[in-house]
């Protein structure tokens, strides 16, 4: 089972809309009781500006630009707290137009042996097709899209398999699943909050099923 090779599971929630980044600062979050006071005090701030804020509060990273909020954590035990945090932020931005949101599941695996590692790439994209003009081709990145959601909501799934974007042991891969929700009916923030709340756990379990199915089908 691929789960035994899992090293890191990071969750990023992205909301696209029209935001005022300067509002969503650590002390604003603490003031609204969305994070601990101490977390605001010890926030690791990279930039606070009218057009972009970027900081860490220990367990979560927060990045806000005028059209995007992204919060993420690599602490699997706090994924529900992450969901509460984004819902809490949105609940204070009732007049904000929101166009889409995505729940991104970044799973980093370390495959125990070189053979199996290269087999994965070879099975996903048979390298024999590329030999000839290319010498010793290797798969670098693969992206698969499902344009329709299985829950009949507007949106899509995008699965990307690539090398990790962080330092990892050899023979590691990143499987990134973007669970994308399109908001096409001028949904209010309240409705958006409801969709995130109801879809969150399902998103996690669906992303796991996608990977398990792939792994079973790879038949290594």
């Amino acid at each position: 089972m691929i789960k035994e090779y899992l090293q890191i599971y990071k969750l990023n929630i992205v909301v696209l809309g029209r935001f005022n980044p300067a509002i969503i600062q650590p002390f604003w979050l603490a003031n609204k009781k969305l994070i601990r006071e101490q977390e605001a005090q010890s926030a690791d701030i990279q930039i606070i500006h009218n057009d972009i804020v970027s900081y860490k509060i220990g367990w979560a990273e927060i990045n806000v630009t005028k059209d995007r909020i992204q919060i993420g954590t690599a602490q699997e035990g706090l994924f529900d707290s992450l969901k509460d945090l984004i819902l809490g932020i949105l609940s204070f931005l009732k007049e904000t137009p929101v166009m889409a949101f995505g729940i991104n599941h970044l799973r980093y695996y370390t495959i125990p042996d070189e053979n199996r590692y290269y087999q994965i790439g070879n099975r996903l994209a048979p390298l024999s097709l590329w030999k000839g003009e290319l010498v010793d081709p290797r798969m670098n990145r693969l992206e698969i899209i499902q344009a329709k959601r299985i829950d009949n909501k507007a949106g899509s799934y995008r699965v990307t398999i690539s090398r990790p974007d962080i330092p990892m042991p050899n023979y590691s891969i990143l499987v990134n699943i973007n669970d994308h929700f399109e908001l096409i009916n001028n949904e209010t923030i309240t409705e958006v909050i409801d969709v995130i709340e109801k879809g969150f756990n399902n998103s996690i379990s669906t992303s796991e099923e996608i990977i398990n199915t792939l792994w079973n089908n790879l038949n290594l």
Partner: protein
Amino acid sequence: MNQFGLIDPNIAEIALIGTGGGYGESCVIHLGNNEWMIIDSCRDPITKSILPIEYLKEINVPLENVKLILCTHWHDDHIRGLSKILKECTNADFSFAKANDLKKFLLLISLDYEKINRDSSLSSTLEFTDCLEILKRRNSHPYFASQDRMLWSKEVNAQKCEVFTLTPSDITLQKFDEEISTLISEYGPPNRKIIANTPNSKSVVSFIKFGHHRVLLGADLEISADLNEGWDNILINCKSIDMKASLFKIPHHGSENSYHREIWAKMLSQNPIAALTPWNKKNGLPELQMLQKFQTHTDKLYITSPKVNLKPKKRHRSVEKLIKQLNQKLTEVKFVKGVIQCRIKIDDPNDEWKVSPLYSAMKIDSY
């Protein structure tokens, strides 16, 4: 006729359904003439099936024959699945204990209902509110349970069959009004879940008359310091008790603070059938000393399932090991289904109860 066969219209039945103590309990009652009553509800946490409905289906009773549903407590822990029962039992009247300050009580449950949009796991009164919404859609008004309130009266084979509620008393209702304010301020915020206090004086006790036979269903009623509440109030002030009961559902899992010697002396016949459900949490109920006490009153003592040793939930070895290494104390609240089915002829004053312990239910012989 076996215990799962069609019941004779002249046979009264009381089926006490237990779940081991963490998942509620319920009573399914045949009032005669194929008309049925359900008190509270409980649900199998694994299959999610609603146990009173499951029981009625097992004995081939159509749900449209359920004519009365009594809700003894508004907290979800006591009535899990009740709204589904009400929805499917389209001919049933609904009864619950009304609050004097109805508006304030409805604010409590309405705020609690809003938690659905934030985090539904923090709501504790969803079932009750859903029941009220169903009644509203049907334009079917509830019957309010209170001391000496008659909810049902019909003749079966020229014998009167009646259902009375004996609680809550007027004083209890007044005190509850004060309690509601505290509940709203303490548990009103969206990130707090209402914790149900048991036993309590608001729990609805019922007294059922089948011809010459009487049944006392004790719910979770406690002994109160105030004689105008709890069991003392019933003993002193209730008018609808005309005869001693031969079947007793022991209140609140046989706990010490719901035991009253005078109940056995004045309200129950000699050597009655006594049934109880266990509570498999903490130190567990009933305690051994209480079982011994009950056995001084009757040798026909039944329990829906035996007390179980409290253990952690079975998990993958690596998970169990880590939990142990982190020195964490966990115990599983096990689900154990048991039914104590009791039947008696309504028109025969000399008939005796036929008791069938089903599933994990058993007779307690000696301790």
